[in-house]
């Protein structure tokens, strides 16, 4: 395995999102506590943003940080993953994420958070609308592609409605999280020479004091 070095980190939060039409108050609180954490990692090529973890509800992959012999924390523990070249053990690495300042999703101007999920055809109705949570699938911003008895929904998490669709709708397969550049503009937020769009598959992480960032 190649060594992984984390250059930067980003935690995306939802505190400033508009919750005006919330059906369930507890989902507002939950959204305010939720973050999606990414690290800009360099391994054997150009740096790319990799998804590390989220505390969101609903079938997100928890192997990216805590995976057995594969998660980012384990990689840090064995010295495979460094943060700005610095080695750290698993607990320092996990703890260091708490010190990363949260960027509110409403302040993201040149990139956006995408959640992609596979749902079975029989669950389509639930995906398109849910009275309890009060969401409806927004065809303007989201897309739904069929693959036989399976549907792949792509949801940009840009408002509370889409947040609910992305988190409350159950999926048998772990949901995938992507950081996507808006248009072709080089996102200043993500720095120079960065290969952007990256499906989150393997764990990556780092640890260290956030003064590094």
């Amino acid at each position, binding site marked *: 395995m190649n060594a992984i070095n984390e250059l930067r980190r980003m935690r995306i939060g939802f505190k400033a999102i508009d919750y005006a039409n919330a059906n369930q108050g507890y989902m507002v609180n939950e959204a305010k506590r939720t973050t999606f954490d990414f690290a800009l990692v360099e391994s054997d090529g150009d740096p790319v943003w990799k998804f590390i973890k989220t505390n969101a509800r609903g079938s997100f992959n928890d192997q990216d940080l805590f995976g*057995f012999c594969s998660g980012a924390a*384990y990689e840090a523990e064995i010295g495979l993953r460094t943060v700005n070249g610095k080695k750290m053990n698993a607990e320092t690495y996990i703890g260091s994420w708490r010190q990363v300042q949260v960027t509110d999703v409403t302040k993201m101007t040149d990139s956006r958070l995408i959640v992609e999920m596979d749902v079975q055809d029989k669950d389509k109705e639930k995906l398109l609308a849910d009275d309890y949570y009060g969401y409806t699938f927004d065809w303007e911003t989201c897309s739904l592609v069929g693959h036989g008895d399976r549907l792949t929904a792509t949801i940009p998490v840009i408002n509370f409605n889409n947040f609910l669709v992305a988190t409350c709708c159950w999926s048998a397969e772990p949901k995938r999280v992507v950081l996507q550049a808006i248009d072709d503009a080089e996102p200043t937020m993500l720095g120079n020479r960065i290969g952007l769009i990256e499906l989150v598959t393997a764990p990556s992480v780092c640890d260290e004091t956030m003064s590094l960032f």
Partner: protein
Amino acid sequence: MSSTCIYKEFAAKLPADLHGQNEDQFLLVSLVGESNCYTYSGKRARSWTVQAVGTGHMIIADAIVASRGFESGGLYFGNFGSSGTLLPEQYIAKVRRMIKNAHPLGENGWVNNVRIKPKEPGMGLVAAIKATVEKNRLAFDARSRGHFFDPIGVEGCVD
């Protein structure tokens, strides 16, 4: 939804002649219970279990996975409720200290007032521990977790 509490936990260091490996081998032994399981007397049920087996490195790898439970809120340490909450990194650090201060496994499997014993009738302790260590080493090499439960069990006071 039920949650789990690790009431007590310690590491036991296995004597080299018992496991036959080059590196030090440990057992992570825990007294655990579920929030919704009660005894006839109305007390929450608890039981001793072997949480992880292997080298210090393997125990930490297991603790990293287990620590996720503290992040999600389904796992407590010491007691249920807010005083039993830990951060994942605090739990991993605790386990690291347990390994550092591991109790040596004594005669007949006694360690820290609990007894490690073979589960299978007729199987000796040494054979059971060797089988456990080997089984877990193979599983770890295959990146598979928790395949050591069959050969050994733990007996001890649960109060």
